[in-house]
């Protein structure tokens, strides 16, 4: 059996667990905990500690694993471990919370420094009316036009599929460019 993996990262509450849940064939093995801190609780009830873990079986001898990073900074030590050997990564950004954009940018750079793999930035929660426009997010996140920034609704399977495909296309085209 062969396995490959991708990492889904991003700030606290960006929608990483939801993203993996939408496409994983197993219940996401998520290590969620009830939140104790009052300030974070105002955002959501449970948070991922350590990691999320989802699976997509491709055929009899190939499996894709999706790893979600924990959102709180005190689990940063997991990042490098999770990034080892990844095919590529997805940075989830909550389009409705501009106060997290700077951190998203910082997470992106950190993962990119771990491994030079392709990545896609996912502008999540685009179904909500407070969501920022993609192009405004591109400026604030300082992504140049070559970086894929894709609109996302993590609860919607087709939307998640589209992002995984964008990442795979980037991986494929990088392999082809590498051969030239």
């Amino acid at each position, binding site marked *: 059996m062969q396995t490959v993996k991708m990492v889904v990262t991003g700030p606290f509450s960006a929608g990483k667990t939801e993203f993996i849940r939408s496409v994983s064939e197993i219940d996401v093995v998520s290590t969620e905990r009830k939140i104790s801190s009052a300030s974070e609780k105002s955002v959501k009830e449970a948070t991922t500690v350590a990691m999320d873990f989802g699976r997509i079986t491709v055929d009899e001898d190939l499996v894709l694993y999706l790893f979600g990073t924990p959102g709180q900074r005190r689990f940063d030590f997991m990042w490098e471990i999770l990034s080892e050997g990844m*095919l590529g990564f997805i940075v989830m950004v909550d389009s409705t919370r501009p106060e997290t954009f700077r951190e998203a940018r910082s997470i992106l750079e950190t993962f990119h420094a771990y491994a030079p793999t392709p990545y896609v930035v996912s502008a999540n929660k685009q179904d909500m009316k407070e969501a920022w426009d993609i192009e405004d997010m591109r400026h604030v996140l300082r992504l140049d036009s070559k970086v894929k920034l894709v609109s996302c609704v993590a609860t919607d399977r087709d939307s998640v599929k589209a992002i995984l495909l964008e990442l795979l296309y980037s991986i494929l085209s990088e392999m082809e460019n590498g051969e030239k």
Partner: protein
Amino acid sequence: MALSGNLRDFTITQLLNLINLANKTGTLVVEGPSQTAKVAFRDGKLAYAQIDQEDSSLASVLHKAKKLSSGQYKSIQQDAAHISDKELGLLLINAGYLSKEDILTNLQQHFTDIIQRLFTWVEGFFHFDNDSLPPDDRISVRLDLENLIIDGSRQMREWEQLQDEIPSLDMALKFTDRPGANLRNVNLSVEEWRVVSYINPRNTIRQIARATKRNDLEIRRIVYGLLQAGLVETTRREGASTSAPTVRVFPTEDKEKQKSLVNRLIDRIRSL
């Protein structure tokens, strides 16, 4: 128990706060990577500050503050080298050249500048020497620490933000190919130009910092400015073989098999 430790665990601002609250008297010695600073306090107030490797004589302080001309400074150095700061101060006051106020204000400014520079030291060791006071022949001041502590906390916040913005100094920099970004149209300081001259995908930010003798905070500040102005962007360092991934990404080495694997993934996800 002597007050001593590492700046990574205890910042300069926290130390000033402690000295202020405890009304301490003595000298704080801070050993940074390339310089050593000595800052003396009396009853929790700043009395004196100097960096070992730099001239901190009254004459040089007044010269830097443009209160003495280069000619005057030179002749003091030649003819009055044996005169102490206190004596020189008295001479200048008695000659009606400067007031006592002038001298104290300039010294305060000089000491404050040294503390401001200390705020940018994030690496190093410190210890507080209870018995040691500024040399007798030097003029000391009495400056409340509160304002300095507030400045220091501001800088600390800046430092945290800069670390967020530029988390790794192991990245390299390259010029953006964005049309309209033109270096010639911006006003850069001499230090910024020096940094710019080293920008190259083969140099990490850390190497540039070393080459331009900037500490972590200073280089982050400069790079942040250049990033914000859209003149440069961060990039992975080229030609660095040390960072080659050790963990395999694909279960096979064969390029064609790798491609077929990615295509199988694509087909599968489409069919979900």
